[in-house]
């Protein structure tokens, strides 16, 4: 798990969530994708549409919105 350093100097505030994504977590218990990674999520005024598109693609391919675990270094 690697995160980037943000300095206190004025800069675009972004959010990096250290997350683990699973496309299936509910009743089936099946994890087709369980991958730890840091995701640049953006914020309300500057959402990261690239990472959102990736999640939307996972939803389109799997039929389920990715389940997200935020854990580890960032929390």
């Amino acid at each position, binding site marked *: 798990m690697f995160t980037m350093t*943000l300095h206190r100097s004025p800069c675009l505030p972004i*959010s*990096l969530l250290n997350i683990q994504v699973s496309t299936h977590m509910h009743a089936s218990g099946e994890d087709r994708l369980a991958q730890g990674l840091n995701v640049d*999520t953006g914020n309300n005024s500057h959402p990261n549409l690239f990472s*959102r598109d990736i999640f939307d693609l996972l939803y389109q391919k799997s039929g389920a919105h990715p389940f997200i*675990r935020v*854990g580890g270094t960032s929390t």
Partner: protein
Amino acid sequence: MRRDRVWYNATQQTAQINEYDPTSSTAKYGIADLVSVGPVWFEGFNNFPGSHWSYQVNMGKTFGEPGGLENALEVARIVMDTVQERLESFELGNEPELMPFFVHRPENYTLEEYIDDWKSYADAVSENVLKGNPYGLAETRFFQGFTFAGDDEEWRG
């Protein structure tokens, strides 16, 4: 190796500040020793509106320190209020058998002591975060635990 090291600063303008102690065992891996987050950090949860979430409450670095529990509870409360009914669980701490290695617990920290710590944090989150929540989240049966690194025979059982 990952540890729970987040600290919420309500007046912080930047979403996230990673601080590194160059003498720590994890800095060379790019793992921060302290992750300070401000209110903007939580806006990141809004980027995936269809997703459900599990959030790990810090039970590592700030355990037992003044304000540590209260700060962890504040973070949990903000996360809950952000993702609301899409919150599936709170995880309490991460890879506890490695906590002594990172000086977050004494060297002889045991599984039994971890369970006591886990129960005390679960009780605190239930009472101070989940109790009376307006999102329909269970107030007590809402926790994931025992997220071990898996290399220690004594902890694996």
